[in-house]
C-alpha cells in the first residue's frame, strides 16, 4: 500500500502518487482546495449549533443563516468537484486525512474524508437539492413559531448526510448514519405536539435501529477479519482476506442496514408513516437523500458484494420484491404523500436491484438515484404546494381539476410525472431504461435471472406509470371534488409564493434535462468509473431496441388505463370497497400486521416470560409454596426476610450451577 502515507499534522505538503490501476485505495492529499473540504460538513454543522444555542434570539434571521450554510456547502462541493474534474480519471480517488480519531492498542482508527466521484456526486445532490428545499422551507414554514429550530435540524441533517457520504471508514460512515437517523427523527417528530407524529417518529427510529444492528454486526465481522474498518483496507480485494462465507455474512448484514435506512423489504413499514412530518422534510429526507443512503452503502461496499455472489443475489431479490411491493401499495393510496412515499420505496427498489447486479449496475443505480432525487423531490415539493393551497388537505379524492388554479405547480409536477414514467426525453427514461436493460443481461450465464428480474422491472415500469398517472390525474385533472375548509369557509386553491415555486421550477428543469445531459456519451458512467470499475457490457437476452419499445408500451398502457379511470370517469369521493388486493394495498399489504405478529408480539412475550422467569419462577419457588400452604403464604409475604432468602437462594442456585458446569467441563 504505497498510498497510506500519514499526513496527520496537516503541514506536510500534498503527497501525489499516481495510481496505476483502479483500486479502492485512494491517494492521500492535503492542502490546496482539498483543505477546505472539511467545510462541507463544518458549515451546516456550525449553523445548526448557532441556531440551537442562540435560541429565540435568532428567530428573525435564523432561517436565512440555514439557507446560507447549505448554499455555502454547495459552493465548496462545486469547487472540489471542478478541481477533481481537472485531474485525469485515474487520479480522482482522494483521501483527505483529518487526524487520528481513536488510537489505543488494537483499535487504531483515523478520521478522514474520501473524495471521489461517488461521494462528490452525493455531495452535489445533497447540497443542491438541500439548498433548494431550504429556500422552499423559508416560505412553507413561515407560520411556524419554531421555524428557526426546524432550520437547525435541517442543517444538522445536511451535515450528517455529508459525513455519511464523505466518510473514509465504515465507522465514520456509521456516525453519519446515526446522525441522519437522529436528524430525521427530530424532523419527522417536529410537530411533536401531535401524538401520531411522535409515534411515527418513533417507528422510523425503531426500524432504523434494526438496520443499525446490521451495520454494527457487519463492522464487527470486518474488524474481526480485516482488523480495520477503513474503506482502503476492507474494500481492497476483500476476497483475499476473508472466506466467501464471511463476506456473504458481511454483505447480508450491510444489506440489512440498507433495508432499514432505505425502507426496503422487510423493513419498509416506517416510510409511509414518516410522511407525518413537514413536507419539505419528506422531499429532502424521504425522497432525495437519506433513504438513498442504503443504495450508497451497497455501491460503496461493492468489493464485498462482488466477492459474495450469494449476498449479491439476495440484494437483487430484495430490490425486486420492494419494487413490486411499493408499486402495488402506491396504486391504492389516496393520501398524496403516502402515494409518493410508496413510489419512492419502489424506485429505490429499482436502485437496489441495479446495485445488486454488480459493476454493470452500480453506475445506473447512482444515475437513477440522482435523477430520482430531482424529480421525486420536485413532486414532493409540488405536493406540498398543493397542500399549501388546499388548506393542508392530503386526500386526493378531495382534489381534482386543480390545474388552472396553480399553473406552476401543475407544470412542474407534470415534468416530474413524465420523468418518473420514463417518457423520452425526460430524465427517468435515461436512467430507468438502463436499469431495465441491465436486468435483462444474464449474470454468470444464468438465463433465468435475466428473464425473472428483467420481467419484474418491466412490470414495475407499467405499474409505476399507472399509479403515478392516477396520482397526477386525481390531483390536477378531472372534476373538482373539493369540500369546504375545516372552518366551513369556501376552499380557494391558490398558487404558492415565489420562494416555493422557484425551487420547484429548478427541480423541474432537472427532471426534464438532467438525464439527457448526463447520459450523453456515457458521461456519467465514465465519471463514476474510478469507483465502480469498468464493466464489460454483456448482451441482454432481448435486443435493446425491443426492450425500449416494450417498456414504452407498458408505460403507455398504464397511463391510458389511469386516464380512463381517473381523468375521464368520475372518481368517487368516498373510496369504494375495491378488490381484496386494493384493500390489502391500502393497509400496506398488511405489513404492520405482519410486523406485529412476527416481531412485536414474540418480543413482548419474550420479555414478559423472561421477567416472569426472573421474578415469578425464581420468586415462585417461595411464592408457589406460599400459595399452596395457605396462611403461611401471607405470612411469608409480609415477612421481608422471605425475599432476601429468595435472593440468597438465587445466588446459591446460580453458584451450584456454575460449579457443576465447571466441574463437568473439566472432567
Amino acid at each position, binding site marked *: 500500500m504505497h498510498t497510506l502515507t500519514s499526513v496527520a499534522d496537516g503541514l506536510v505538503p500534498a503527497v501525489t502518487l499516481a495510481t496505476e490501476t483502479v483500486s479502492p485505495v485512494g491517494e492521500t492529499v492535503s492542502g490546496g482546495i482539498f483543505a477546505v473540504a472539511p467545510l462541507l460538513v463544518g458549515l451546516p454543522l456550525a449553523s445548526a449549533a448557532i441556531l440551537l444555542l442562540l435560541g429565540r434570539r435568532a428567530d428573525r434571521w435564523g432561517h436565512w443563516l440555514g439557507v446560507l450554510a447549505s448554499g455555502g456547502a454547495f459552493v465548496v462541493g462545486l469547487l472540489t468537484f471542478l478541481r477533481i474534474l481537472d485531474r485525469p480519471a485515474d487520479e480522482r480517488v482522494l483521501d483527505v486525512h483529518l487526524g*487520528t*480519531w*481513536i*488510537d*489505543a*492498542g*488494537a*483499535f487504531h482508527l483515523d478520521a478522514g474524508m474520501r473524495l471521489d466521484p461517488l461521494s462528490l456526486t452525493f455531495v452535489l445532490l445533497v447540497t443542491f437539492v438541500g439548498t433548494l428545499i431550504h429556500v422552499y422551507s423559508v416560505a412553507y414554514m413561515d407560520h411556524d413559531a419554531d421555524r428557526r429550530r426546524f432550520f437547525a435540524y435541517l442543517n444538522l441533517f445536511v451535515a450528517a448526510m455529508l459525513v455519511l457520504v464523505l466518510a473514509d471508514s465504515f*465507522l465514520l460512515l*456509521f*456516525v453519519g448514519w*446515526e446522525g441522519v437517523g437522529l436528524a430525521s427523527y427530530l424532523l419527522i*417528530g417536529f410537530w*411533536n405536539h401531535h*401524538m401520531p407524529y*411522535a409515534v411515527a*417518529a*418513533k417507528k422510523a*427510529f*425503531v426500524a432504523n*435501529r*434494526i438496520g*443499525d*444492528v446490521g451495520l*454494527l*454486526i457487519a463492522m*464487527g465481522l470486518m*474488524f*474481526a477479519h480485516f482488523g480495520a474498518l477503513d474503506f482502503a483496507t476492507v474494500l481492497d480485494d476483500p476476497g483475499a482476506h476473508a472466506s466467501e462465507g464471511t463476506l456473504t455474512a458481511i454483505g447480508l448484514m450491510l444489506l440489512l442496514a440498507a433495508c432499514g435506512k432505505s425502507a426496503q423489504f422487510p423493513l419498509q413499514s416506517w416510510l409511509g408513516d414518516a410522511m407525518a412530518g413537514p413536507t419539505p422534510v419528506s422531499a429532502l429526507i424521504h425522497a432525495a437523500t437519506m433513504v438513498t443512503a442504503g443504495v450508497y452503502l451497497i455501491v460503496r461496499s461493492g468489493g464485498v458484494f462482488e466477492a459474495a455472489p450469494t449476498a449479491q443475489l439476495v440484494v437483487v431479490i430484495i430490490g425486486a420484491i420492494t419494487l413490486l411491493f411499493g408499486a402495488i401499495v402506491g396504486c391504492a393510496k389516496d393520501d398524496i404523500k403516502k402515494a409518493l412515499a410508496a413510489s419512492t420505496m419502489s424506485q429505490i427498489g429499482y436502485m437496489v436491484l441495479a446495485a445488486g447486479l454488480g459493476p454493470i449496475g452500480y453506475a445506473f443505480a447512482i444515475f437513477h438515484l440522482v435523477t430520482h432525487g430531482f424529480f421525486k423531490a420536485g413532486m414532493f415539493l409540488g405536493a406540498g404546494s398543493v397542500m399549501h393551497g388546499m388548506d393542508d388537505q392530503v386526500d386526493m379524492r378531495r382534489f381534482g381539476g386543480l390545474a388552472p388554479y396553480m399553473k406552476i405547480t401543475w407544470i412542474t409536477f407534470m415534468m416530474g410525472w413524465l420523468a418518473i414514467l420514463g417518457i423520452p426525453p425526460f430524465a427517468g427514461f435515461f436512467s430507468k431504461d438502463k436499469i431495465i436493460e441491465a436486468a435483462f443481461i444474464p449474470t454468470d450465464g444464468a438465463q433465468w435471472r435475466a428473464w425473472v428480474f428483467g420481467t419484474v422491472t418491466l412490470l414495475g415500469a407499467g405499474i409505476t406509470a399507472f399509479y403515478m398517472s392516477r396520482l397526477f390525474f386525481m390531483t390536477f385533472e378531472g372534476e373538482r371534488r373539493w369540500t369546504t375548509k375545516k372552518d366551513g369557509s369556501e376552499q380557494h386553491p391558490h398558487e404558492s409564493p415565489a420562494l416555493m415555486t422557484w425551487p420547484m421550477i429548478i427541480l423541474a428543469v432537472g427532471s426534464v434535462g438532467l438525464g439527457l445531459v448526463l447520459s450523453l456519451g456515457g458521461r456519467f458512467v465514465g465519471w463514476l468509473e474510478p469507483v465502480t470499475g469498468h464493466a464489460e457490457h454483456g448482451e441482454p437476452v432481448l435486443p435493446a431496441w425491443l426492450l425500449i419499445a416494450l417498456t414504452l408500451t407498458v408505460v403507455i398502457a398504464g397511463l391510458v388505463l389511469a386516464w380512463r379511470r381517473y381523468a375521464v370517469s368520475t372518481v368517487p369521493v368516498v373510496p369504494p370497497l375495491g378488490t381484496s388486493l386494493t384493500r390489502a394495498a391500502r393497509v400496506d399489504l398488511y405489513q404492520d400486521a405482519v410486523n406485529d405478529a412476527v416481531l*412485536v408480539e414474540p418480543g*413482548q412475550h*419474550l*420479555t*414478559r416470560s*423472561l*421477567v416472569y422467569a*426472573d*421474578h*415469578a419462577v*425464581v420468586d415462585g419457588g417461595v411464592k408457589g409454596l406460599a400459595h399452596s400452604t395457605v396462611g403461611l403464604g401471607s405470612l411469608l*409475604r*409480609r415477612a*421481608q426476610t422471605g*425475599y*432476601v432468602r429468595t*435472593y*440468597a437462594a*438465587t*445466588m446459591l*442456585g*446460580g*453458584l451450584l*450451577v*456454575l*460449579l457443576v*458446569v*465447571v*466441574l463437568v*467441563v*473439566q472432567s
Partner: protein
Amino acid sequence: MTFTAPDIAWGALSPVLIVLAAGVLGVLVEAFVPDRVRRPVQLVLTFGALVGSIIAVAALWSGVRSSGGRDVLEGSLLVDGPTLVLQGALGVLTLLALLVVADRTATGEDAFAPSAASVPGSEYEDLARRKGITQTEVYPLLLLATGGMMILPATGDLLTLFVALEVLSLPLYLLTGMARRRRLLSQEAALKYFLLGAFASALLIFGVALLYGYAGSLRYSDIAAAVATPSALDPLLLVGAVLLLVGLLFKVGAVPFHAWTPDVYQGAPTPITGFMAACTKIAAFGALLRVYYTVFPSLQWDLDVVLWTVAIATMVLGTVVALVQTDVKRLLAYSSIAHAGFVLTGVIALDDAGISAVLFYLLAYGVATIGAFGIVWLVRERSVSAASDDDESDEALRASVLGEATHLSQWAGLGRTSPVLAGAFALFLLSFAGIPLTAGFIGKFAVFSAAVEGGAWPLALVGVLSSAAAAFFYVRIIVLMYFTSPAHESAPDAPGAVEAGAPTAGADVALTTDDGAGAVATLVAAPAPTTTTTVVPSEGLAAVAIGVCALVTVVLGVFPTPVLDLISDVARFLP
C-alpha cells in the same frame, strides 16, 4: 526472637492513606466539632482529601509508568498502572459524587436523615427533629468506603482482598439505610444489602480458604505459580476459584448474583446510589481483572465457561428486565446490571487491550451514572395542595417539595419544562445506549473489539444485540421526556401517560407489584394524583457535577484518544 519492622513505602500508599486518614479524622470531627460549623468542616475535609488523593496518584504516575509498578507492604498491595488508573478514576468519580451528596438543593435539605440512627416514626426521631439535630456522618463514611475501594484493586493477596472488600462494604450498608425520605424502604434495602453482602463475603472467604488449601499461600503470585505447574487440576482449586469470582461478581451485580441491585439502588439515598453504582463497580471490576489476569490465566479454559455464562446471562437479563421497568431508579439499576455484562466481555478477552478497554468503559459508565443519578435526585414530587406552582420562594419549596419523582410517568414532558436537565439526562442515556459521539460508544467499541480480538466473538455478538435492544428503553425515556405530555395535563391516571409513550408499558403496570419485594411495592405504589413533578434548583454543587459529567461524556466520546493513550500506556499488571 527479634521483630523486623517491614520497610513500608509510604509514598506509594499515599492515595489510599490520605483518604482513610481523612475518614478517621472525619469521625473525630463528627464527635467534637460544634454543630454549626460541622458540615462545612466535613465538606472541606472530604473535598481536600479526595483532591489530595488525586494529586498523589498524579505524582506517582510517571514513576509507575517507567518502572511498571512495585509491591508495597511485603507484597500485600501492588501499586502498578491499573491500580493508579483505578484509584485516579475512583478519586475523580467520588469527588463528583460528593458534589451531588453535599447538595442540599433549594429546599435546604440533603438526601440523608438528620439522625439516621433513630427508629423511623419514633419519639426520638421527633425529638431530634425538634431539637434540630443534624448529623453529617455521611462524609466520613463516604471516605472510608472510598478508601476500601481504592485498596481492593491494588491487593496482592487474598486476605487483603477480603479485608478491602469489607472496608468498602460496611460503610455502604450504612449509607444505604440513611435516606431522609421513605426511611423504611431505605432501611429495608440496607438490611437486604447487608445480609446478601455477608452471604457473598462468606462465599468469598470460603473460596480463599480452599485456595489456601490448594496452594499453601495467600499471595497471588504464589497461587499463580501453583496453578501453572502441571499437576492434576484439583477440584479444590476450581471450586475455590469459582467461589472467589462469585464474591467479586456479587459486588458488580452480575447475574445470578444481581438480585440485590434493584432493591438497594431504589432504596438508597439517590446520591449514594450514584456513588455506589459507579465506584463499587469500578473497584470490584478492578479486583476481578487483577485476579483473572494474574492469578488464574492458566485456568482460562476452565473458568471461561463460568464467565461466559455469567456474562451472557447478565447482558440478556439486565437488558430484558430493564425493558419493563416503571421506576427510573430500578430501570437504571437493571441497566447497570446489563453494563456489568458488557464490561465482563472485556474482562474475558484476557489481553492488554482488554485491560484498557475495561478501564475506559468503567470510567465512561461511571461518569454517566453519577450524572444520571444526580438528575434523578433533582426531579421531585411536589404536593399540589401545599403551595401554588408560581410561588418559588424557598419556604414554599421546602413546604411542598417531597421525595424524588421516580415513577417514569412523572418524567413525561420533562423535556419541555426543563429542557437543559432533560437534555443532559438524554445525553447520559445515549451514552448508556452506546450511540456514537458519546463516551459509552467508545467504551462499548473498545470492550467488544477486545473481546473479538480475544476470540470471544459470540460474546461480542450477544453484547451488540443486547445493547441494540437496550437502546429501546433508553430511547423510550427520551420519547417520554420529549414527546409525551406531563401526566397531570393529560390524565389523572398516571400510568396511562406512560402507556401512550411506550408500547411495553402495558406490562409495566401489572408488574409494578410483582417486581421487587412485596414490602417495597407497597411503599412505592404509583404516585397519588395530588403531586406534580418539579425540578428543584440545585445549590450549585450538583449542577456542577452534572455539567462536568455531561462534558466528560461528550469529550470522551469525541476525543477519546488522549485518555485511551493514558490508560493503555500503563495498562499492565505486575505479575
